[in-house]
């Protein structure tokens, strides 16, 4: 257990070393919130609604996704592809700890880092922009939301490991990564609530794991009756795939060698 605590601590130290990097990253997160805010204010600020969302509702949604992003999508496992390509994977692989736990703990450290910054930024955003926020009081929904977020964290983790593992087979990992990022930007519901789209589109999107990262957990938090089952299924399914791909990939890694 102690070794994982060390890993956690070292990851945080790594992050602190690059101060400018840290600051830039957080400033970017603020912008991620700002642009949609202005758009929605221009469109809905005067009243009315779009596909059932009033200005207040959309602001709640936006606020929610901003917070959830840090929690669910803060990750260092993105480095995995690079680590495989440069052989940097060898060192943690040889250590006496579970490699998945290693990556996961690093992710947790990253999430903690992001969250602590949110405690400064959120009050700031609130004071400047006064977005209406909705505090869920129903214990049941709260519980479901938390489980949902936990599932989302696992799903994102597995997605990262799977995409990072591509590096076992090809040197160029940036292109598929880029494509994934672009798709996720849209499909996770980060740009706008997915139920603004036609029914058919929603159904198709829900067949992919992406909406379960931000859109679904947020909806559950907001009190909508969405089943947790699909998420559980995704967690298990992705977990299995990850294990398989990882094993296959690892055997190739030994073969390439360094």
């Amino acid at each position, binding site marked *: 257990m102690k070794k994982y605590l060390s890993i956690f601590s070292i990851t945080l130290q790594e992050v602190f070393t690059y101060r400018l*990097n840290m600051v830039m990253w957080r400033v970017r997160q603020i912008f991620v919130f700002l642009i949609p805010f202005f758009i929605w204010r*221009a*469109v809905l600020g005067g009243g009315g609604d779009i596909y059932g969302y009033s200005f207040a509702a959309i602001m709640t949604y936006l606020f929610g996704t901003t917070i959830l992003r840090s929690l669910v999508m803060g990750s260092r496992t993105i480095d995995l592809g690079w680590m495989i390509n440069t052989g940097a994977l060898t060192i943690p692989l040889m250590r006496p700890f579970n490699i998945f736990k290693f990556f996961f703990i690093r992710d947790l450290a990253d999430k903690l880092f992001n969250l602590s910054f949110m405690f400064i930024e959120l009050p700031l955003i609130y004071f400047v922009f006064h977005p209406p926020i909705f505090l869920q009081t129903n214990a049941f929904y709260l519980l479901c939301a938390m489980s949902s977020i936990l599932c989302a964290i696992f799903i994102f983790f597995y997605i990262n490991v799977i995409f990072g593992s591509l590096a076992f087979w090809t040197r160029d990992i940036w292109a*598929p990564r880029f*494509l994934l990022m672009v798709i996720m930007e849209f499909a996770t519901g980060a740009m706008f609530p997915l139920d603004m789209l036609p029914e058919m589109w929603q159904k198709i999107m829900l067949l992919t794991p992406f909406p379960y990262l931000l859109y679904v957990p947020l909806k559950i938090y907001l009190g909508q009756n969405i089943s947790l089952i699909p998420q559980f299924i995704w967690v298990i399914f992705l977990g299995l795939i990850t294990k398989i791909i990882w094993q296959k990939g690892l055997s190739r890694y030994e073969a390439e060698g360094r």
Partner: protein
Amino acid sequence: MKLKVAKTYLRVWLKLTSQQFQSQVANARGAALLFIFGKLFRLGTAFLMLYVIMGRAKLIVGYTMPQAILILALFNFVSNIAQLFMRGIYMFRQKVVDGTFDFYLLNPLSELFYSLFSATDPMDTLLIFPYLGLVVWAWINSGFPLIFSSVLFVLIVVVIAFVLIMSWHIIILSVGIKYLEVDNTIMLYRDLEKMATIPIEIYGKTGSAILTYLFPFALLATIPARLIFGLYNPWFLLGFVALAILYLKLSLFIWSRALLSYSSASS
């Protein structure tokens, strides 16, 4: 003498770009296709968002939907041209870390030239045509005529915008040299730039002012659009020319100061 130097730069750039292409052929071509698909997907989702929003709101800060689409198309075009040429900045950190930047410094041609322009991906140039086509389509669709004077003004704006974008990239490089932090900075720049995807009036009086006079991202889309709609006095462009020159001089100054503290990759 100046002309000769300019020709040298052009020749070297052409050669670098063609060699980049050869290098890609030697490696993975699939990657380039994935990139193109990704970029088109991104453009698609931007359009989708526009339709979703504006499907219900007929007017957004005084612009109709077709006008907003033109602004989006213009932004897409200008932003992508800039990214296409100045792709080198995305590899900059790596070049400093592995020592290649030292070779740039000692090469007779400007190290800024290599840092920004040496990584042009020829595959990206293919996308220019559909993007340009999109602008033309959106222009016609907005109901405003494609007359010579409008086209001329738009071209002038694009040139000014390019000089400004280059200046900002040089400033980002300066930060990168000093703090070895480039990737987040350039992405932050892109986030800021993205604000110009939509008419800047959306950001209120203060926001518009900042985006016009301080960081003239408005030049990327809103201002050329206004020129097309006949809502803008072309003489104002002179002011932007001055601003662009000022920014360029400033960025070069910052760059030379940043190099003073350059400590070079260790051997």
